């Protein structure tokens, strides 16, 4: 799952550094991901994992790190 998340971040995160150098718990917003890029990441994750993020999960924290995204996907895929 992590590699699929990182592939999406690489393509849609608009990050100014290599995704491979970002740790699981590193803050993606501090790393340079904009709010607009996070929308694209969200939509791409929905496509990749065939899920839909409910409004309640649209907190900034949901997409703030690889680990946070993995946790959110786990909740949705496991639901």
């Amino acid at each position: 799952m992590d590699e699929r998340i990182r592939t999406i971040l690489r393509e849609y995160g608009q990050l100014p550094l290599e995704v491979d150098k970002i740790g699981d718990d590193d803050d993606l917003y501090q790393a340079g991901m904009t709010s607009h890029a996070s929308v694209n990441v969200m939509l791409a994750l929905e496509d990749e994992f065939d899920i839909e993020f409910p409004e309640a999960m649209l907190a900034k924290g949901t997409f703030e790190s690889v680990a946070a995204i993995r946790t959110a996907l786990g909740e949705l895929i496991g639901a």
Partner: protein
Amino acid sequence: MRTGTALRVGADVVVIHQVAESVDRFGARYLERVYTEHELRSCTGSPASRNASLAARFAAKEATIKVLRPRDHQPDWRSVEVRRDAGGWCTMALTGHAAALADQAGIDELAVSLTHEGDMAAAVVVALCHAEDETIDHGALPALDAFGRKN
């Protein structure tokens, strides 16, 4: 208990071609997830003109969220709406969680200014807050005397 007034300001910039890429890649899902029907009706013209207008509206939404200062749950993008007046100027309209955050902050009025130039769109949002004294961040708005000097 006395009440007072404070200002909050939020600003944001958005790269227009990134909005164009989102429209191309995700189409209606992107548009309908982020923008209201009114906003989509307001953004017309050539693709370049429409994308610039959409980017400015996204910047206004983000600027407004900065003003609202959500602690955890972020408002739905569509609950922060740019309303275009028939006269050409824009105002902000809040619903749902965004409206609740504004109410909690004592925000009575929001003013917005949108602009775009080249590949960048930007927005500035100013909020006028009425709140009890202890909830106002006086450090952000120092009291001035009649000559504009800090007291």
